[in-house]
């Protein structure tokens, strides 16, 4: 996360850290059910073997030295069948739900954001020298409607309808490498709902180049069917 701030420990209890089998963080993800994690498909490019990955939950520090940390192996990987940058991980055993580990809410199928919502992204990714490395950082910014985001001065038609943009028009704060797969959540009344999976961007925190997130509401039927059938 570029700029933003270090979050209150365990205030984003659905954020997971996707790691190599040796424990090296490389992507984020979100707990959507005690045994299921949503992440980006591009985070799973290096290996198609579930044993190559580990999911860390309940952590604030990247070092994962807290006693609240749960480390769970991955049982199965499910990439979206049409090569959209979204994937599901089934954990070998359910995460223990406690004050440090709580699933996020998913949006209603095909629900849309109006382009004014205040949303938040979190992660342990690159900070581009803005500090807070090693801690779970957060930053907030509005969602930008695709009509605006696809203007020539923004992302010039690169944003597909199954994606959404979010960021500050001036840049300055953004998600970045290492935050991929993590959540973009928006407050709906008193609950956080995951509307995006961190996917791609043109650089990080550049003016007029907001981050691009996979639009979760488009994939609710797929998520539901994978979870029900597995």
């Amino acid at each position: 996360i570029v700029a933003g701030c270090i979050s209150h420990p365990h205030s984003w209890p659905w954020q997971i850290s996707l790691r190599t089998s040796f424990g090296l963080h490389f992507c984020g993800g979100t707990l959507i059910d005690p045994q299921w994690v949503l992440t980006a498909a591009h985070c799973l490019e290096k290996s198609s073997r579930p044993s190559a990955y580990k999911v860390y939950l309940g952590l604030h520090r990247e070092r994962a030295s807290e006693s609240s940390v749960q480390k769970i192996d991955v049982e199965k990987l499910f990439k979206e069948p049409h090569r959209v940058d979204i994937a599901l991980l089934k954990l070998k055993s359910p995460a223990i739900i406690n004050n440090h580990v709580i699933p996020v809410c998913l949006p209603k199928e095909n629900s849309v954001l109006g382009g004014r919502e205040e949303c938040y992204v979190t992660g342990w990714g690159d900070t581009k020298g803005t500090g807070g490395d090693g801690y779970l950082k957060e930053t907030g910014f509005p969602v930008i409607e695709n009509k605006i985001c696809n203007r020539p001065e923004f992302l010039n038609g690169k944003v597909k309808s199954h994606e959404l943009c979010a960021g500050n028009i001036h840049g300055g704060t953004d998600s970045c490498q290492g935050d991929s797969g993590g959540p973009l959540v928006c407050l709906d009344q008193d609950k956080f709902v995951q509307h995006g999976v961190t996917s791609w961007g043109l650089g990080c925190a550049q003016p007029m180049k907001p981050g691009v997130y996979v639009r979760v509401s488009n994939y609710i039927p797929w998520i539901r069917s994978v979870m029900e059938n597995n």
Partner: protein
Amino acid sequence: KGDVLDDYLRMDGVWILTRNKQFYETNNEIECAEKCEAERNFTCRAFLYTRKKLQCLTLAENSKTTLIFSSTDSVLYEKRIYLLQCKRGIGKDYRGTEAKTWRGIPCQKWAEKTPHNPNITPEKYPSAGLEENYCRNPDDDVNGPWCYTTDPAIRFDYCNIPECEGQVMQTTEATEGPTVDCMICNGEDYHGNVSRTESGLECQRWDAQEPHMHGYTLKHFPGKDLKMNYCRNPDGELRPWCFTTSPTKRWEYCNIPRCTTPPPEPAPGRQCLSGRGEDYRGTISVTESGNTCQHWSSQSPHRHARTPENYPCKNLEENYCRNPDGEKMPWCYTTNRTARWEYCTIPSCDGVEQDTAAVDGPEQAQVTEECYRGNGVSYRGTTSFTVTGKKCQAWNSMSPHRHNKTSDRFPNADLRQNYCRNPDADSRPWCYTTDPGVRWEYCNLKKCDDNLQITLPKPPQTTLEPDPECINGNGKDYRGTVAKTARGRTCQDWRSQRPHSHDYFTPLTHPEAGLEHNYCRNPDGDVNGPWCYTTDPRKAWEYCDIPKCPPAQYECGKSKVKQKLCAQR
């Protein structure tokens, strides 16, 4: 009489599919219109003209009655009188489709002889539009359009045709009522029924998400009249637009003519920030980072389209901060080449409005509540200072702290002025503070006297702390007090070396494993769960029988720790 084309409504880039048509070759649209006027084979309601081929096609049908396709080279001209569902004067040129009398009796077809044998027939009055059983006024009746009725007892009766008013034009959606088909300013108030883009594509309905998914819904843009698939300008664009039904063209501007009347006199506007500051008309011309604003009429150093000409009603004067496009607050292009545009810091009107509210009628009478009950969710008093004496920020203000505790998100929380409230069921009333360094604080309020407290049912317990007497997973986190093995043997104290000596699993070697007393524990992550050394000299250790915890009940998306919600905007 002006141009013959004045009687037609023009639509570029479309083609309509009709059965009755006649081909001609003409040099221009005017000649084609003359062909339409002179058409004898059928009633000409419209014509298509293709400039490249000089092709003129007179048509018996118009866009109200048949299919429309996009076709880049052609232009459709529809005779206005056939699009009107209202009458002008006595309605002699009324060509609408009303076919009932004012009493609701169906009209007889003009060409039929029963139940009444008419004197006025299509043959005798070929130019009177006596088609089907539509109400007409072929004989200049001062009472307006009429028809022979299908009731044998009533030979004829008048129809109830609404009057056309001034420049008002009614289109096919007769139930929508008359609508003005021109726009003033940037068409933000345009409520007309045009539903095609400038290239002739049909608009997608605003309440549809196909073929284009979008966020311009009624919910997100209330008050923007996003009905049907009509062109609108909900977001400060140059002019009305719509998403199109073409999968390859997400959205496009519509061609809405400008009204000939001059734009309305500008409202007086404010000198302070209220809401998003769209009505700010002050003279601040410096951005929040200290850059000087570029003149709106200048294209240097930043080229842009927010010019006074493009936005005639937005008071883009000099280089003053303005919000012509529904941004969060007034802004301007800056004279700094590296900062294209920035927001401005405009003092809030909150104080002024607060004073005004105080003198409002009885409904605004201020409630005096010096204490709160329960967690203060129902507190409706007017305290507006925190425990450390900081003044509260108004809930509808985003300065100095941006937040999402707004009255539209929490409509029942009474987020008025800057009064302490508890919209999120925190432990007591709180507010965002006006101190930029302190986002929020609890308020300087006491809990009401317990004796006076009303006992309310407690909300369901939502704690997620594990039940100490059951285990999750392998029970590594088990911290309960079971001290017997599954076979009933008593556990040995972890600090003791008798009867079994053990160096490895002690409170000193595993300080985080909870090795207290002789309670069952799982310091080594044994997959079979907690265990203990036993007091039976014959059995060194044994598993304990501790029940599995039921699946935790949780509320998704709700953290037990409040977020910072930090945002650098």
